């Protein structure tokens, strides 16, 4: 669930000012805006730095983003996919809606959050969350449920 500051800043920039490549981060599809200024079907990609500058590190996407006063972005169908340096998928984070606070680098929602490993072995979900990007702190407020799929190990009970 790590979102780099630059990534969200870029996202904000993409949404507010248009989509342009910036360093190792890029929007991977043209951004469309409706008359109300809502950005639809956007995606931003962050790449690893050296020595893997061509490998995607994360891909953040959403069905809609709406800028709000105070540097807030209301993102619908939020989805963050992370990848290993070899390109294999790592984890996926999804929320129907979240508010990204650009000045404070936080994301929150009263709604549902789901995280899952790409191999499907681990899944965590809950209702209501706060992600503080600066100190990498995630709180899930209610109804937390984690499922881990694991191979049966030989019991070691004597």
């Amino acid at each position: 669930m790590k979102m780099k500051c630059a990534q969200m800043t870029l996202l904000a920039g993409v949404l507010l000012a248009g989509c342009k490549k910036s360093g190792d981060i890029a929007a991977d599809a043209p951004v469309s805006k409706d008359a109300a200024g809502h950005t639809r079907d956007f995606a931003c990609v962050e790449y690893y730095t050296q020595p893997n500058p061509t490998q995607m590190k994360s891909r953040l996407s959403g069905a809609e983003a709406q800028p709000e006063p105070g540097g807030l972005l209301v993102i619908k169908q939020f989805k963050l996919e992370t990848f290993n340096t070899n390109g294999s998928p790592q984890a996926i984070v999804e929320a129907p809606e979240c508010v990204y606070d650009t000045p404070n680098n936080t994301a929150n929602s009263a709604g549902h959050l789901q995280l899952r490993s790409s191999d499907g072995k681990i899944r965590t979900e809950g209702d209501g969350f706060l992600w503080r990007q600066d100190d990498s702190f995630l709180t899930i407020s209610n109804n937390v449920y984690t499922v881990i799929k694991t191979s049966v190990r030989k019991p070691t009970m004597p």
Partner: protein
Amino acid sequence: MKFYCLLFLAGSCGLLWSQTNPPVQGLPDQEVGLHSDHFYYDGRARELVYYNNVVATNWEGKLTCGRLTILLPPEGSAGGHPSTMVAETNVVIDFLKNGETNHITSDKAIYAYSLVNAVTNETITFTGHAKGENAKGWMTGEPLVWDNIADRFTGTDFKTILKPAPSSGNGTNAGPFNLLK
């Protein structure tokens, strides 16, 4: 020890931040479920905390406690094995073995794992009114320590009490959990 898996697997929700163990060939997947009211992940401290009404269940039994803390290993460390897990506040572990219910309670249970010079140490230390009980008897210790490598319980002020066998003449000296070797 069955509840080892519960505590460890609860801990293995080192989750999306640590690697999952490679699957064991030929063995089916089983699920571990972990419920709690609240949760937080502190990326700087590298700890995962589940709190209020924590319930972990797997194919072996159930662990309940008020708070479960999992310390993740340093980033990049081999295996991604959590080094410490702590279950606190009304720790209760129930598991079945050979059709028999086993029940362990304590105020706190600390799982510790280390690998030093190719020697693995793996223990669970139960403190605060630690007690294990089943149909054959019960045991206490302060603390009560399960050594998962040596496969046995040890403890300070360690006591084992056997209940009278229902039939006479065929009793054994085995501990209530077959733990004393």
